[in-house]
């Protein structure tokens, strides 16, 4: 095509206009080859590092789902876009670059393939005009994205891009943004100079270049041609430099993050792989980096330091040293230190040499205060746009401290002993487990095994005075609705969730097995739990040990009974209620609606929401066995959460978890609100609304 042929219908442009061919082509191909070699070497080196450390782990089942996940997370940026501001920022750059790469491929395809071979040019006419418009539009998107990113990193400086107020910006972060920006800017300059020189009448479609060309008004055409060539080369070198730079920079996440999405766990949320062999192992859990699986280590290379995890981490936000981002980054740094040695050893076919005086993974790389601060609330994993699995790593390292070293806090040791000796963390005599039900006429399965549901009460509902009231309330609801159910009484044991999440897998399995044997012995099929911890453990972890049950949380059952009209709530209650999402109901099991439906059915109350609700809910502080540990760094998590309820203007905190109930009740006291605020389990509120609450005389004496 001749460049000066500007008739309508001849819209188009000469690819590589003003570039001396074929000398240019040879040079460009040579440079491209160099860039690809540098890129390839970097990936190869990284590949060796990924392979060099960690135990084997296969994540290649269900390929259809894996491919779909990559489509959703990579091509549609699903998780990235869940957080709109940084999400849109990233999407502008991602989609912009993606479309521009296609554009470059179109140019190259026509120039090197369809034109010389088939004498077919497709970048012309209306297609060319739309194509030009889209290229400029998406180029502009990238530029806007880069500007937003620079603004975020250097002006807005959100907490999540740092740690405790100190930004963790590295030179690489700046280089990458400037590199991307420069590629786009030089691209527009090239376009503008070409338009300035050739001046075709349709080029207002390339609106950015067209507008920019106006700034070159008055520039000599020959000068413009020279400038054009210079910027062309700068643009080409930057582009090739970008490719070569990928494996050596944060740009690597273009590969590792989608790969990590591909390798995503298909287990239920919060599932923890059990230790399957106690007899032949020398050490348990993860005390050394190489005791993680390679995938667990690979996770850290997919981290982009976006800080979404940190944004809702209850430990971080209340001043504990733990930040999920920092933990993953510390693991990455440690891996980068150790991996080259491991690669050498692997090449020589040797086991990696034990480093003398090297840093300990648990205690030095990951501080013990970080390790023990995690509440397993699952916020980090739910919101990580790179599919990183933080919580299993924490539990693996806790397993090492508890099982291998038996080095953990005295108060947690006591709780473990209590679970061992009396099958509950409080250490109350196991024989009183069923006593709460004595006066209600609730039968045990030993008395009548022919019931539809087993009501698994759990330790709080059996031993804690406050928790027992939930059990009583829920039993009354079931009785009122005529549901056929029974309890295990003294045959019930601790669910083991706290044992498992503090790393005491051995104890957890003993507790789980004892429950499963009893439940299977009675042929139990359906179970209702009032504690989300037991609910989650029985539902997701018991199947590993032969316990396969249909498990319900009491809020699900109550919501169903209300919907079916089996219980009526004629009494109006008073107050402004806020529902606190328990982590083990919400993020772990996506039970968000049932509790809210229950509140909606109660007359007379206003329902408000906290800012951090649903899947962004803020943990009460009791999960991950934190219930049994002292909390002496920073603000107490339960107090922080209670403050959020106060800010929402609530006078009643409704919960669906006995741990949350304890934490919220304590938080109300610590915030000096006990005169005006209360915390209730939904079952208790429902019993009140049913008008079935025992009305006590103003003064009465009752036997202990």
């Amino acid at each position, binding site marked *: 095509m001749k460049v000066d042929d500007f008739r309508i219908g001849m819209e188009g442009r000469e690819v590589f206009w003003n570039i001396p061919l074929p000398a240019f082509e040879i040079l460009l191909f040579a440079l491209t080859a160099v860039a690809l070699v540098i890129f390839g070497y970097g990936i190869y080196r990284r590949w060796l590092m990924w392979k060099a450390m960690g135990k084997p782990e296969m994540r290649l089942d269900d390929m259809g789902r894996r491919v779909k996940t990559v489509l959703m997370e990579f091509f549609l940026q699903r998780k990235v876009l869940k957080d709109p501001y940084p999400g849109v920022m990233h999407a502008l750059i991602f989609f912009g670059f993606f479309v521009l790469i296609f554009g470059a491929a179109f140019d190259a395809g026509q120039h090197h393939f369809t034109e010389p071979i088939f004498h077919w040019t497709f970048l012309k006419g209306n297609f060319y005009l739309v194509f030009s418009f889209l290229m400029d539009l998406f180029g502009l998107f990238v530029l806007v994205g880069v500007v937003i990113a620079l603004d975020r990193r250097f002006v807005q400086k959100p907490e999540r891009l740092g740690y405790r107020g100190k930004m963790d910006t590295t030179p690489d972060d700046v280089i990458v943004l400037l590199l991307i920006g420069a590629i786009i800017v030089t691209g527009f300059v090239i376009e503008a100079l070409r338009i300035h020189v050739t001046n075709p009448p349709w080029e207002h479609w390339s609106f950015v270049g067209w507008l920019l060309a106006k700034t070159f008004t008055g520039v000599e055409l020959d000068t413009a041609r020279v400038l054009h060539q210079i910027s062309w080369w700068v643009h080409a070198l930057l582009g090739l430099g970008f490719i070569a730079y990928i494996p050596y920079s944060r740009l690597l996440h273009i590969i590792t993050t989608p790969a990590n999405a591909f390798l995503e766990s298909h287990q239920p949320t919060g599932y923890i792989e059990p230790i399957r062999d*106690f*007899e032949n192992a*020398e*050490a*348990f859990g993860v005390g050394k980096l190489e005791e993680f699986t390679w995938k667990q280590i690979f996770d850290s290379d997919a981290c982009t330091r976006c800080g979404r995890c940190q944004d809702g981490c209850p430990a971080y936000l209340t001043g504990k040293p733990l930040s999920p981002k920092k933990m993953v980054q510390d693991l990455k740094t440690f891996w980068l230190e150790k991996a080259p040695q491991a690669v050498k050893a692997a090449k020589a076919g040797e086991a990696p040499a034990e480093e003398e005086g090297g840093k300990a993974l648990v205690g030095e790389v990951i501080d013990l205060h970080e390790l023990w601060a995690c509440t397993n609330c699952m916020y980090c994993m739910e919101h990580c746009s790179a599919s990183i699995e933080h919580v299993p790593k924490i539990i693996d390292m806790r397993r090492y401290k*508890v*099982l*291998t*070293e*038996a080095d*953990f806090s*005295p108060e947690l*040791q006591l709780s*473990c*002993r209590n679970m061992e*000796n*009396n099958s509950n963390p409080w*250490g*109350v*005599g*196991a*024989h*009183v487990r069923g006593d709460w039900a004595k006066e209600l006429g609730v039968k045990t399965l030993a008395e009548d095994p022919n019931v539809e549901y087993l009501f698994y009460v759990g330790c709080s509902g059996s031993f804690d005075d406050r928790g027992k009231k939930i059990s009583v309330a829920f039993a009354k609801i079931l009785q009122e609705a005529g549901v056929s159910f029974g309890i295990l009484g003294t045959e019930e044991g601790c669910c083991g969730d706290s044992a498992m999440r503090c790393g005491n897998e*051995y104890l957890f399995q003993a507790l789980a097995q004892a429950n499963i044997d009893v439940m299977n012995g009675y042929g139990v099929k359906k179970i209702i739990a009032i504690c989300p911890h037991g609910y989650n453990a029985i539902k997701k972890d018991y199947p590993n040990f032969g316990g396969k049950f249909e498990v319900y949380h009491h809020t699900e059952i109550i919501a169903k009974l209300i919907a079916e009209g089996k219980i009526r709530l004629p009494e109006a209650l008073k107050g402004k209620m806020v529902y606190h999402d328990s982590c083990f109901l919400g993020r772990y099991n996506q039970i968000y609606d049932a509790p809210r439906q229950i509140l909606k059915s109660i007359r007379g109350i206003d329902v408000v929401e906290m800012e951090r609700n649903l899947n962004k809910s803020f943990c009460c502080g009791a999960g991950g066995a934190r219930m049994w540990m002292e909390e002496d760094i920073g603000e107490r998590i339960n107090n922080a959460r209670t403050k959020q309820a106060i800010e929402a203007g609530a006078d009643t905190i409704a919960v669906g978890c006995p741990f949350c109930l304890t934490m919220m009740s304590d938080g109300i006291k610590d915030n000096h609100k006990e005169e005006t605020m209360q915390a209730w389990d939904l079952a208790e509120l429902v019993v009140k609304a049913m008008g079935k609450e025992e009305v*006590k*005389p*103003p*003064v*009465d*004496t*009752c*036997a*202990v």
Partner: protein
Amino acid sequence: MNIIACVKQVPDTEAQIKVKADGSGIEEGQIKWVMNPYDEFGVEEALKLKEKNGGDVTVISVGPARAMETIRTALAMGADKGVHICDPAFDGADAYVVANALAAVIKTLPHDIIFCGQRAIDDDAGQVGAMLAEALGVPQLTLVTKLEFAGSSVKVIRPIEGAQLSIETALPCVVTAQKGLNEPRYASLPGIMKAKKKPVDVKDAAAIGVATDAKAKVAKTIPPPARPPGKIVCGDDPAQKAAELGRLLREEAKVI
């Protein structure tokens, strides 16, 4: 250094104790058995001494077959070997018989220091340590809350009303452990696994050659007298509750 730790298996402190209808003892069926907590202090101190000074720890228990669990618990904590004195003839044994049985075994073993709990939480007699020292003819240091080892002697702290005594003696000796001596460790899982394979010597009365006739016998076990039920003043109005409490204290309890 040769360290001996004597342990007894007792009901868990939270276990529900039910006296048999005929008064011949307690119902054992539902009971969770654990190591006597004071003995656990002894085992812990034995392990600490071993870790600091080398040597080995032998744990000895007199008790029925189930007492093996308690020996294994001590082995899981880190003791090296066990001796289980197990014979139906020891059912109903008193402190004198137990101390003689322990002494008979200990005499056959090298021993520098012997730990006992200051008493067992089941019968609360607190005699075995003292009798054992007597049977072995060695000094005894009782109710110890701190222990320092100095080659061939030990120096211990024993709290008394308003002061504490610092007591020294040459080895070998018997030390009875009191709460405060240490925090017993939680057994590691490798420890628990290894404990299954550690040697435990099971001996009957004939093997150790001691008399099993108790000098003192428990004639009858009687449940404690039932407590009259307490009362809680319930209600929502603090003023009315206070008035009711006052009335009860005056009219029923007759204390004001």
